């Protein structure tokens, strides 16, 4: 039998195979349509644009956690469409805002995706970014807010920008008078303990005279052991710390163990008077003492509470005993 004869001899098989061949493209076509449909809907969901805020066309992106706090404090939190990964206050507002970068490091694509009208910055890791954003018609608003005395003006500036001047001015005045009364209370303070500020558990990093936390500490009634240091934050030698022999240590870092435990077990540290007498503390909310924002008065109050608690515990001891 020839090959043709063989093929003719089983027509049913041939038609069946033809059917399968005909059905295959149809199924794969349907599959393609479904996949395309799903992809399209996924894409649409991804590029779905948020509706513009109702009261104005303003869409703000904050590049610093304390600027986010300032904007929210003046009642303009709803204007924020982008924030940094470190922004965590007020929680109910920031949880709704998409992350568009790290502190001082905006991520260009997520930032453009939220279609901002203004980008707020106090410092940018890459100054060239300002020009790139300006070239894209997105104004970058510089809000100087790294020192204590700049906070009220920063609030007022944001108030004007967001049309919330009344609330901003009120808050700025409150903060200004709060700082003033803290300053008066601190100057009348008789016993001012010498405090060593520490910013890391493993390396002795402290703050100099002009650092933000140092300013808060001195308003709360303490004296910084690093008062003579010019640089804001620096790594110092342990030998220098032993020489300073501060009255107490104030840890401005998160730690799983009580801070006293960290230092009590380390050579050099355990010989410090503050460590031997258990005068090692931390504050409850680290952000309030390290962010130059609207919660600055809380920050001062927290440090003051630590100093008061220490003074109560060691009331019988002299706050500035003779240094060896």
């Amino acid at each position, binding site marked *: 039998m020839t090959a043709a004869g063989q093929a003719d001899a089983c027509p049913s098989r041939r038609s069946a195979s033809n059917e399968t061949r005909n059905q295959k493209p149809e199924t794969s076509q349907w599959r393609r349509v479904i996949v395309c449909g799903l992809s399209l809907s996924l894409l649409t969901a991804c590029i779905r644009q948020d509706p513009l805020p109702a009261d104005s066309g303003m869409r703000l992106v904050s590049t610093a956690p304390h600027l986010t706090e300032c904007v929210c404090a003046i009642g303009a939190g709803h204007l924020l469409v982008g924030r940094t990964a470190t922004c965590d206050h007020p929680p109910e507002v920031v949880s709704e805002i998409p992350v568009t970068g790290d502190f001082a490091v905006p991520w260009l694509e997520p930032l453009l995706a939220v279609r901002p009208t203004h980008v707020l910055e106090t410092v940018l890791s890459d100054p060239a970014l300002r020009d790139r954003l300006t070239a894209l018609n997105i104004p970058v608003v510089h809000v100087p807010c790294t020192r204590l005395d700049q906070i009220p003006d920063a609030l007022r500036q944001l108030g004007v920008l967001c049309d919330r001047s009344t609330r901003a001015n009120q808050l700025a005045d409150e903060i200004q008078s709060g700082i003033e009364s803290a300053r008066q209370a601190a100057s009348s303070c008789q016993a001012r303990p010498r405090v060593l500020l520490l910013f890391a*558990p*493993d390396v002795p*990093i402290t703050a100099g005279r002009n650092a933000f936390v140092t300013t808060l500490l001195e308003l709360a009634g303490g004296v910084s052991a690093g008062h003579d*240091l010019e640089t804001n934050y620096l790594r110092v*030698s342990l030998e220098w710390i032993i020489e300073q022999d501060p009255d107490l240590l104030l840890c401005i870092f998160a730690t*799983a163990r009580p801070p006293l435990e960290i230092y009590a*077990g380390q*050579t050099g540290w355990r010989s*410090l008077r503050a460590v031997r007498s258990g005068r090692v503390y931390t504050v409850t909310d680290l952000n309030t003492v390290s962010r130059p924002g609207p919660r600055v008065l809380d920050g001062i109050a927290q440090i003051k509470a630590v100093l008061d608690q220490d003074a109560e515990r060691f009331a019988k001891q002299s706050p500035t005993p003779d240094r060896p």
Partner: protein
Amino acid sequence: MTPSRTTTCLLLLTVPVVLILCLLAGPAGFGLPDTSTPAGRALLELRLLRVVTGFVVGAALALSGCALQAILRNALAEPYVLGVSSGSSLGAALMIVTGLAQLTPLALPAGAFVVGGLTLLLVCLMSGRAGHYSPNTLILVGVVASSMLSSLLMFVIALADTLALHSITWWMMGNLQATSWTLVLIVTVLIAISAALLFSQTPALNALLLGSETARHLGVETRIVLPLVLGAAALATSAAVSLAGCIGFVGLIVPHTLRRVVGANHRRLLPATTLCGGAFLVVCDTLARLLFAPREIPVGVITALSGGPFFLHLLLRNHETHETP
């Protein structure tokens, strides 16, 4: 007495003097601290711990560099060439990021030591699959492993929070302020074991300078000696890195300098390198503590600044030698 023997004796006398001078110097002033006050005693203990740590770490890095240069027969070989530093850094970073480093002071050095050691084990296993260790394969596998681990480290850093990021960065820059004598003691014992192993292999190291084939003809059991020397060098490096972080250039420049001073015979070279490596790092650390006091700069900056130009000189000289017919 031959000139190199005289030099060795001179070195033996100079090293203790240098160490004592470094013990006396500090940001609090030059001189022995007043031990009648608690602060004075604390200062002395602190400086003593620092000098001991610096010496042990420097000695380990220089010794390990010297041994690796001999067996890899490569002038640019150093303790970190087989990926130990990247492995240890990754181990330390993982300990910091997971928060284990905060729970116990031993977690960070343990993590760095284990991952650093594992890295070397892996590099050796992969390079030695054919049954023998080729220097080029070892170096290449080490470089590849190092790059891969560095990428993983960057990934960990990218996900870390600010505090962890700072801790990792400071750790990687090197720090000779050990937290306790116990830790220094553990590391010293580990380094002493590896030093004893390496010293016992000096004849083999001398023979290996002529190439593994010739060494085999001279009766050196290269299949045993090579893994042994690699393992001992890795043990010393991992232990040193776990205590003080990654301090560069000590393991590169000290053996090369000493080779010119005392000659290439490992019987003299290994002890001289060990002593001078320790002393070199202690001097660098004293400078790091004093130059910008009370600010302390990472000791790696000083070793790299003094080692960098030396490295370039070495590289260019080698290049010229190769170009000259």
